[in-house]
Structures are given as structure tokens and as C-alpha cells.
């Protein structure tokens, strides 16, 4: 019997599951394309220009430029996380889409891998929509900020993996609200997003760096958009890569355990 750390046997067929989700996304584009656009504008006006009037600079950086990468990082987190919690749960539990898929040559590993890749892709799409808006306002610096796009895929995959772990153990759709407001919402506020990590007590800074995935994503994103590159980028990248690999593997095995009895 495979255990939760065994490497799942994912085949190229995962791409078909990814494609199915892409088709549905594009078909309902009106409801999918505007939220990230509106979200970017709301954050820019409310926090960037609103609060930015009082907080003009952080460490010599205009406040609106300081939060621009956080807006991108939060969008990466939210789009992948909600896609692979509520979105995947609806497809698994209510629509029985996974049951229909595994009656074909697709295996459950292929299906979940396709879902994870799709969650990451959704993050990429959101960043692609938001970047031009931020660029027009002159708060991100091109061309280095374009690297936010591949970064969105890696970060998205990490949050998709984390989300799928919750989905694999949740008894129902309501209990998915717990990780949303106990984990995701606080993380959006305390990961060096709207104020620097250094403002927090030392132990909270260590805590954020040790266990809050968004901290690392925001840090890299900020290095790319300001830009202010530093060798610590590699450490953040390594942290994300390790957590991504672990959560994706565990989530596939947990889903297998849940669905194949």
C-alpha cells in the first residue's frame, strides 16, 4: 500500500484534466477575468492611495510600490487556494466529476495532479491580468517584474498543494471555511504584506518565516517588482520549492486514500 510520502505515479493524462478546467474557465470568462482586475484596482486605491497618503514611504520606498508585490502575492495565494479547496471539493463531492474521470484511463493521481496544475495556472492568469494594471500606475518596474509570472506558477502550485491537503481531509464544504479564515486571512495581513515584517516582535518574525508560506512569496515578489534583488531570494525560493513538493505529494496520496476504497 502506498503511504502518504510515496511518489505518486502521475502520467501525461493529468494534462487533460487541466485542459478540462481551462475550457470551463474560458467559457465563463466574464465571471473569471474581472475579479482580479477589480481586486488590483481596489487595493491600489484603498490601501495604496488611501493609506499611502499618510504612510508615504517605507524604508525609502513609496508605500504604493511597497504593497504592489503584496497585491500580486495575495492574488496568487487566493486564486490557487480557493480553486483547490472549494472548487475541487465541488467537483469531487457534488458534481462527482472525479468519479466520472477515473472510469476512464485517467487515474486518481492524474486527476489530482491536473487539479493542482490548474490551481497554479489560475494564479498565473491572475498575475498576467494584474501586472499591466500595476504597470500603468507605475508601481512595478518592468521588465524584471515579468518574472512574477513564472513565480506565480510556483507559488500557485504551493498553495494548490496546501489547499488540496485540506480538501482531502475535510468532512464537508463548510469546514473548509476554517483554513480560509484561520490561516489564509491572517497570513494575508501578517506576512510582510502591508507593513514590513521587521515591525513585528522578533519571535513573530521567525514564526512568519518558518511557517507562513506567503512570507516567502511576498519577499521574492518584492525583490522582483521594486526591484531589489538579494541572494536571500534563493533561500525563499528553496523554502517554497520544498514545501510545494511535500504538499503536492501528500495531497495526492491523501486524496487517493479518500477516494479509492
Amino acid at each position: 500500500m502506498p503511504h502518504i510520502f510515496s511518489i505518486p505515479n502521475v502520467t501525461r493524462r493529468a494534462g487533460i484534466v487541466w485542459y478540462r478546467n481551462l475550457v470551463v474557465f474560458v467559457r465563463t470568462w466574464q465571471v473569471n477575468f474581472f475579479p482580479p482586475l477589480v481586486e488590483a484596482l481596489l487595493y491600489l486605491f484603498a490601501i495604496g492611495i488611501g493609506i499611502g497618503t499618510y504612510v508615504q514611504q517605507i524604508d525609502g520606498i513609496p508605500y504604493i510600490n511597497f504593497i504592489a508585490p503584496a497585491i500580486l502575492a495575495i492574488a496568487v495565494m487566493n486564486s490557487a487556494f480557493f480553486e483547490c479547496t472549494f472548487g475541487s471539493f465541488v467537483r469531487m463531492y457534488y458534481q462527482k466529476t472525479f468519479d466520472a474521470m477515473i472510469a476512464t484511463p485517467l487515474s486518481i493521481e492524474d486527476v489530482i495532479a491536473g487539479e493542482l496544475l490548474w490551481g497554479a495556472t489560475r494564479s498565473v492568469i491572475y498575475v498576467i491580468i494584474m501586472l499591466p494594471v500595476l504597470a500603468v500606475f507605475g508601481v512595478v518596474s518592468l521588465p524584471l517584474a515579468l518574472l512574477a509570472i513564472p513565480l506565480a506558477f510556483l507559488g500557485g502550485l504551493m498553495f494548490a498543494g496546501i489547499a488540496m491537503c485540506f480538501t482531502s481531509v475535510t468532512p464537508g464544504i463548510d469546514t473548509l471555511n476554517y483554513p480560509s479564515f484561520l490561516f489564509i486571512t491572517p497570513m494575508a495581513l501578517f506576512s510582510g504584506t502591508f507593513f514590513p515584517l521587521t515591525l513585528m516582535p522578533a519571535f513573530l518574525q521567525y514564526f512568519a518565516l518558518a511557517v507562513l508560506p506567503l512570507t516567502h512569496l511576498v519577499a521574492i515578489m518584492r525583490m522582483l517588482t521594486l526591484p531589489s534583488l538579494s541572494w536571500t531570494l534563493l533561500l525563499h525560493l528553496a523554502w517554497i520549492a520544498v514545501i510545494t513538493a511535500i504538499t503536492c505529494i501528500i495531497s495526492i496520496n491523501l486524496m487517493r486514500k479518500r477516494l479509492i476504497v
Partner: protein
Amino acid sequence: MTAIIKAHDLKKNYNSTVAVDGIQFTVKKGEIFGFLGPNGAGKTTTMKMITCVSPRTSGTLTVLGMDPEEKPAEIKQSLGVVPQETNLDPDFTCFGNLYYYSLYFNIPKDEATRRADELLEFVQLTEKRDVSVDKLSGGMKRRLILARALVNRPDILILDEPTIGLDPQARHLIWEKLRSLQARGNTIVMTTHYLDEAARLCDRLVIMDNGKILVEGAPADLVREHVGDEIVEVEGSDDVVTCLRERGVPFEKTGDMVQVTGTTEKAREVARTILDRCQPARMITRPATLEDVFLKLTGRNLRE
């Protein structure tokens, strides 16, 4: 005829409950093979093992000469599955459901389009081609699921209660489609609770209960062997019951009627005797059916 599905001492446990308890059967190429039994008998579990979505606990199972645990993708490439639960994709139209399902089988896109349209016609849903599946009636949904099970031109069709909840018209249409598929050389394995359906369609069937196979055979043979050609049912009043008891006629109470048992031969003579001696107000003799076999073997108690 060659064996296309073969099970020997097949077992499946869910934690501590035994769902399938060492069954043995062989499905031959080109036949319609039925699994009958009360709820919880282990029919659906058996289907799930055949369709490679539930691993067996022990025993051997081969489908198309392959082991579901070793070559699930290869087996599933040649299976068409109609599940008990309707799991059409609500994000797509009727056409979309067939088209995207074809892609899961690696069927090229233009071929998938062609097959989807062809199958919509086969199940008479062409005019619903671009309608969302939410808008379909129950019968239409079952027909679309049957069409979906055919996109990969399967060698074996696995149907778990294909006509559940359908009106007589829709059931007849499904039966007609299944027969034409059999005529084309498909092997069909099905479960059903409708015994008339099983008697009409199945070349051979098994009756299961508590995870075990009780009997196996052609429907007509099973009827003849276990309940005879005709059934005598008499009004169940106290007088009649006393009379039957005095004459030593074996019987079984079924609601307000009494069914005379052990009338394998000479049902008419028995009927005449009862009519003369016991003078019941109501009595019928009727041809025995698969339902009589089913109830005789699995009892009349409610399950679950």
C-alpha cells in the same frame, strides 16, 4: 465462447465489513450477464472491482485477460461504464459531455466530435446537443450517460442499474439500445433491481446475497429449477390455511395471499385439488417468474 471477465474466490472487505465474500464467475464474450441481489448484496462493489476503481482484498480477477491492479489504464481504455449515480459534468452541454469525455480516452479531437454527434443520434438526443445537462429529464440523463459510456467503442459495457427511476418508455428505449449493442458484439455486464428487466435482457445471471453468489444460470433455467413453471396463489383466510394444513400441502404466507410451494410439477392438479377441497374465494395460477426465484432465495425481509 471465450471468457472475457473471470473471478475466482474474489473478496472485498471495507474495514471490518465483508462486502464481497469469495465469489466466482465467468462472463463470456458477447453475452449479457446480470448481477441481481438485494441492497448491500455486493453487486456494486463487484462492479467497482471490475472497473478498476476499487482494489480487491484477495482472490483473482482478470478483465480482458489483464489484472485490474496491474493494468488499470489499459483495461479502462476498453470499458464503458454507466454508474448508478448520475455523474454527468454540469459545466458542459450534452455534446460537451461526450466530447470532453472522449478526450479522457485520448481520442483525437475531430474523431471525438464525430463520435459525440453520432452517439447523440444513437440515444435520440440530437436536438438537445447544445443544451446544458441540468436541463435534461431523468430519462435523458440516463441516455446521455449510456452514450458517454460508448465514446471509446468499448469491448465491455458495465452498467450499474442502468434504468433506475425511468418511466416505461425510457426503459424500453434503453433495452432496445442494449440489445443492438449486444448484436454488434459488445459484452454487457449489468446489475438491476428490476427482475423483469433481468429476465428479458440477461443471457445468464447470478443472484447474490450477503456478498455471496447463491445461484447462477439462464433466467428461464433458474425459474424452472427453483420454482417450477407455474405458481399457485390462494386467498390466505383461516379456513383455507387450516384446510391446506390438514391436507399436508406445503405453503408460504405472502401478505394476504398464500403461495403453495413445492408445486414444481402438476401445478394445475394441485390447483384443482385445492379448489375442490378448500373452496377458496380467490385463487390464481400464473407462470413463475424470476421474482419468485429471487424472493425464494433471498427471503422477504427488508434490507438496510
